[in-house]
């Protein structure tokens, strides 16, 4: 599999706190990777390490296969754009000047593409207005435009929806989807707005207290969060026979447990199982959202 970013036991300790503890993650090429965790879980710390703002205490990471400790990592970073915490823009400059500034930092030969970028993020009509007079959403979009200068194929966005109004959130979401679909940009988004993330992400990484709790694809997660009935029976052999006969979708969890998907007529199923000599020990309806899935995973007791 082709990974844009891989971390292996990545660790970052500050004087008194352990921000990241042996974190291992894999961001697949072309994915929109939702990096989910509570405030202080270590999301921003990881992004800072990847961007070279801080050095790891232990472990390693690689960007496009280039090790974070090698000299070539600076070259690999040129293929990446990032918005870390707040948009990194000069408030005393206009949107166009900010982009020109970034073009110079990157050493691009001309300002060709500045207009297109402004159009892409919907800031083409800001003219001589300075960034300090922009709304939060406009600043966020300008930050993304700056990160997109140089045509990166990996974009890191740290809490891009923070402080945005509903319309701003929709605009940013559409922009990210467009970048992923039209430009094949791999995106890593850290967020704790799970509902918003669930509309975007193709893969998830759940982080808690600096540890990676689980990495999962959106498809797998959808399957796990599907509405289902969880059955505990004396034996799944008669159960499968009955479910096959009734044409129902199911998955076997163990010798005595199974999940049954789709609309289930409980009385009909119970009678059929009784007739087949299958004893039902417990029956639960399950319907998880991303939010409850995350809370179950990290054990609740905080805010995602």
């Amino acid at each position, binding site marked *: 599999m082709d990974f844009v970013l891989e971390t292996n036991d990545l660790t970052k300790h500050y004087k008194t706190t352990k921000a990241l503890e042996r974190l291992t993650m894999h961001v697949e090429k072309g994915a929109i990777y939702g990096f989910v965790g509570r405030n202080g879980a270590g999301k921003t710390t990881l992004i800072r390490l990847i961007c070279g703002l801080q050095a790891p205490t232990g472990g390693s990471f690689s960007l496009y296969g280039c090790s974070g400790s090698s000299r070539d990592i600076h070259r690999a970073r040129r293929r990446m754009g990032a918005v870390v915490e707040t948009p*990194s823009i000069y408030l005393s400059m206009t949107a166009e000047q900010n982009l*020109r*500034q970034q073009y110079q*930092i990157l050493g691009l030969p001309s300002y060709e593409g500045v207009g297109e970028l402004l159009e892409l993020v919907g800031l083409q009509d800001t003219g001589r207005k300075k960034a300090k007079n922009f709304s939060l959403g406009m600043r966020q979009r300008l930050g993304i435009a700056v990160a997109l200068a140089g045509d990166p194929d990996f974009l890191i966005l740290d809490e891009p929806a923070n402080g945005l109004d509903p319309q701003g959130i929709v605009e940013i979401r559409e922009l990210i989807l467009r970048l992923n679909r039209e430009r094949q940009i791999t995106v890593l988004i850290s967020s704790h707005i799970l509902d918003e993330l669930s509309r975007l992400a193709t893969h998830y990484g759940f982080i808690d207290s600096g540890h990676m709790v689980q990495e999962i694809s959106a498809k797998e997660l959808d399957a796990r969060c599907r509405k289902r009935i969880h059955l505990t029976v004396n034996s799944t052999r008669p159960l499968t026979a009955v479910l096959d006969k009734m044409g129902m979708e199911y998955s076997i969890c163990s010798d005595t447990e199974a999940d049954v998907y789709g609309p289930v007529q409980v009385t009909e199923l119970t009678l059929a199982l009784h007739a087949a000599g299958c004893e039902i020990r417990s029956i639960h309806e399950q319907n998880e959202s991303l939010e409850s899935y995350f809370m179950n995973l990290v054990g609740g007791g905080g805010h995602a």
Partner: protein
Amino acid sequence: MRNLLRANFFRMRRDEMFWTCFGVVLACSAVFMFFWCREDLSLGLAVKLEEYYFNMVMALGLFDAVFAAMFLNAEYTEGTIRNKLAAGHTRREVYLAHFLTVLAASLLIMAAWLAGGCVGIPMIGIWGFGLAGWAHHVLIAVGFTVSFAAIFTFLGLLLSGRHATVAVVLTYFALLLGAATVNNILSEPEFSSGIITTMDEIQMAGPEPNPRYVSGTLRTFLEVLQDFFPTGQAIQVQNLSVLSPLRALACDLGVTAAFTLGGLALFERKDLR
């Protein structure tokens, strides 16, 4: 690093603080020189240009400090230093590019002072010690400007947050205070002769050794120390009393190397946000 320098100069050209410092220095230098010369001409005094020309040299460090503090602090408060690192530039390149930008701005502010002072030329003529004397003093000013740039870049990039700006400006005043103290000690005359006033007459006392006069190794140490302070060199240029130009330039080289190398090493390890 060329890209970073181009980007920094692009920003400097649009920086209000830079143009404010440049404008204030140019205006003050020209206006003060004009009024000093006019007053002396009206009194019929035969003054030389250098007596006033270097009066503003002491203030240059303050403008350098204010510009450097504001320019460098914006990289942290607006988070733009992240763009440079995330774009693949090394910390060494980022540090050196900022040092060179602060130095260029400081030299331009110095050029504003030099240009403004020329207002006196049509009124009282050129420098009494000629262009060579002028170049000699300006060279020392360039030297301590380089030292200022190294010190202010060191502080501006290693301290972050609101207190950084204050710390840079306070450092200038600390350097000024230190240099003024050393200069006061060194300015003590070797012998003191005074006037004794009695009930009936005024008598001149013979020269007596001044107990506050510092001599020997301690004097040499203080002279070197004064050269180590960029503000100490500024005082010497203002007083037209540069003790040892070569030593002053060697001190500038030492201060610049120490702060730049130290700054590079510390900046390499600094956790940025």
